[in-house]
């Protein structure tokens, strides 16, 4: 649902309008000759409230939020079973007790009640107009539902349901968060059509069974798969977040050993993503490239901490040990199936176009595309980030340096893509923060005037001595 962050005057007026409209829609149900089926209405309203309560008290496992979507089949079934004026009332008690994300609690609940009331009412009205109720069957004479024909009004009602919900959502976003109307509505209806049609099918079967001799209990069973589906979906999101955290933990494990590069991995991931988007890569490869950037230095886990933290010049032996890190990295992520192309990037991100890189000394196009992207992103961040012993270079200077090395060290196509992306999106200030917790005073001062990395060796980004 839309966020109502601090009720502005416009939002209050908007909510008031919605409430008045909903109330007007419900008035006909109160007149005695309307023949409102109060029993069905009461049962459906109670069911909906019961579905909303777990979200509020978190009884099931405590941490898995059930999204409102799992109850839409119930609301649609109500829209099919009840006349429009009665359908308006179904969602009201449930919405008034529902869980909301934050203050202002009352305003959010009232808004939710009015929004759902209008939406269900509109769907029910569309259903009645397209001749739906007659196709449901059941009733005293025990008619058989006219099933293929019953699908049409149900789908029409689902479309109206989705459109009205999205329109009202867009309105509250526009008034409460002062987003321009056309931004608030962009993409809202298109995304929800598919799910609403599925909900309509479940709602239709609920309504058919509700009307049949088997009664409301059998109708409830239709909800169970939908409910489980939503629960699994919530689990999926939780696990997905946990997976990201684990990737971060891999990176942080590197930081434990080598404090200088803190934040470097995330930024290389971001720069790689920028380049990928600029090159027009598809979404899954962009995602993979971002992970490649984040994990490119994970092989430093294999380099002895004593060598990584060494102050002062490295012996050729130590340099050789450090140059093993792409191979260690490749070995560490070998078991992670989804990384796929990204593994090549981790192995080859220190190759150079002229063949003077490591570990294999590949040249030109024989270096995997992902590796060429990560090499540019790595060098760029190494130059622009401020380390405790030297200041970062300004972005234009770094790009100039990359251009100078394009062709011999970097792929010119990737350098151009990065330059274009930087022109378009800029580079966030976070990149220029000091990236080490270590006390600068404890480090040899001459590092400040050591030549910065660009000209050549991003093999130890930012650490030249």
């Amino acid at each position, binding site marked *: 649902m839309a966020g109502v962050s601090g009720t502005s005057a416009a939002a209050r007026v908007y909510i008031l309008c919605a409430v008045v409209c909903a109330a007007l829609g419900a008035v006909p149900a109160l007149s005695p000759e309307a023949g409102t089926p109060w029993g069905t209405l009461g049962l459906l309203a109670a069911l909906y409230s019961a579905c909303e309560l777990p979200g509020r008290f978190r009884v099931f496992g405590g941490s898995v939020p059930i999204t409102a979507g799992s109850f839409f089949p119930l609301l649609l079934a109500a829209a099919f079973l009840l006349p429009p004026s009665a359908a308006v009332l179904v969602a009201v008690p449930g919405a008034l007790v529902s869980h909301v994300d934050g203050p202002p609690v009352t305003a959010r609940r009232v808004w939710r009640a009015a929004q759902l009331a209008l939406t269900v009412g509109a769907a029910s009205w569309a259903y009645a107009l397209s001749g739906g109720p007659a196709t449901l*069957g*059941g009733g005293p004479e*025990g008619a*058989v*539902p006219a*099933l293929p024909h019953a*699908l049409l009004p149900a789908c029409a009602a689902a479309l109206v349901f989705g459109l009205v919900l999205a329109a009202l959502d867009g309105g509250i976003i526009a008034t409460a968060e002062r987003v321009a109307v056309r931004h608030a509505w962009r993409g809202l209806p298109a995304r929800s059509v598919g799910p609403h049609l*599925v909900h309509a*099918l*479940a709602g*239709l*079967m609920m309504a*058919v*069974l509700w009307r049949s*001799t*088997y*009664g*409301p*209990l*059998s109708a409830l*069973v*239709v909800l*169970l*798969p*939908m409910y*489980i*589906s*939503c629960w*699994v*979906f919530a*689990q*999926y999101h939780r*696990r*997905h*977040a*946990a*997976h*990201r*955290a*684990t990737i971060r*933990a*891999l990176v*942080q*494990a590197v930081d*434990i*050993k080598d404090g200088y590069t803190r934040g470097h991995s995330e930024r290389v991931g971001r720069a790689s993503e920028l380049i990928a988007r600029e090159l027009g890569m598809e979404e899954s490869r962009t995602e993979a490239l971002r992970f490649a950037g984040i994990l490119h230095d*994970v*092989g430093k*886990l*294999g380099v*002895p*901490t*004593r060598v990584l*933290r060494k102050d002062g010049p490295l012996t050729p032996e130590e340099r050789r040990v450090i140059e093993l890190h792409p191979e260690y990295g490749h070995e*560490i992520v*070998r*078991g*992670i*199936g*989804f990384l796929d192309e990204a593994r090549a990037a981790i192995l080859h991100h220190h190759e150079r176009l002229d063949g003077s890189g490591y570990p294999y000394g590949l040249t030109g196009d024989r270096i995997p595309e992902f590796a060429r992207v990560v090499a540019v992103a790595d060098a760029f961040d190494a130059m622009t980030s401020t380390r405790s012993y030297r200041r970062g270079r300004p972005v234009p200077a770094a790009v100039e340096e990359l251009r100078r090395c394009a062709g011999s060290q970097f792929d010119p196509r990737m350098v151009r893509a990065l330059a274009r992306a930087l022109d378009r999106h800029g580079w966030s200030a976070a990149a220029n923060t000091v990236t080490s917790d270590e006390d600068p005073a404890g480090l040899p001062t001459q590092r400040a005037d050591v030549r910065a990395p660009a000209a050549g060796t991003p093999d130890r980004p930012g650490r030249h001595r």
Partner: protein
Amino acid sequence: MTPVHPPPAVLAVRGGALALAVAALGHTLWNGVVEPGHALAFGVLVTVGELARWGALPGEREPAPLGAAGALAYALLGRSGGQDTAHGVLQVVTVVAAAQLLASVPHVARGSGPGPDQAARRLLTVAFAAVCFQPFHHAGRSEHWFGEGPYFALFLLVLLVLSALCDAVLAALTAGTSRRYGPQLRDELRRLSGIGSAVCATGAVMALGVAVAGLWALPVLCVPLLLTQVSYRRYAAVRTTYRQTIASLARSTEIAGYTPHGHARRVAELSAAVGRELGLGGHELTVLEYAALMHDIGQLSLVDPVADGATALLPAEEQRRIALLGGAVVRQTGVDPAVAAVVEQQADPYREQQTAARIVRAVNAYDDLCGEGVKGPLGALEQLRLGTGRDYQPQVVEALARVLARGGPTRVGAG
């Protein structure tokens, strides 16, 4: 310890299913198909549902939920569009067996068919449901007892729950591990609550929906269940990736040269085996496995590796410090905080530990001591027994000895 020949229980299940299928097929061929339209519709549904095994991940609890729900619905179908149906138990078995055969053709062609056990289980479960329902229905008893109202719906649900239990028993019988039957059955029952209940619910709703609205109810009801299946697949995929990433993180200490090669994996497998021996299951086992995988992660903060990574030989204070550092890393990984707690406790005396930490401690020490080479497994076990006064819990050490005597850890689902 994968048995070369399947145990007698597995053979009995397979043989029973085969005999049943042959008998049913013969009977149906002899007498002809009753209501061919319905048989065809449900046959197609089960075939399509079984084809959805495509892309199933190994170890998925129910890779073809639509096939299961369709088959159960056909077994429990007593009416269609208000008219009574006349198909019997043997026709249900025939339709399901034929659909399974048909659906397995493309799978077998690619060399990845469903195992004979899964097919046998499906057939026997459906036959169970049909035997419980169809004779009652044909004799008119179900109508007499429950009418055509809400009680009939309840009756169907109860039958489905019984079928699910029957399926769990068969699954535990055919699991093919050396585990005892009890914990295996408990695990199977625990897993029922997820997609199993969605399958039962859809099976009941399909039977009722067809009874009310005729065969058109089938495609309409497939959609929500397919959605559930897709959600489960995505969830399973991300869970697999997650496990792989955790394993990579665990291996990082080996690549960094802190621990010997394969140490984390060995400790995890042996810990899981000991945990099962001690009756742990489900969530506890997952926590134990993750904790065992990552128990050495704290060593990353050491500037110099411990010799051979054998933390069991370090002074107690140093061990505890590494354990606390490891817990801090694990907390960042987003795994259950219980895992971090186990990692932190792994160096404490066993009376202050929870069970998982006791197991990790003993198994880690065993693997470290074995790695020393002089004493070998027996010597390592002897050393652990000497330490049962303070460091290692006697029950855990004995469970470890039993697991080792059987030939080491077995992976669940193997065989």
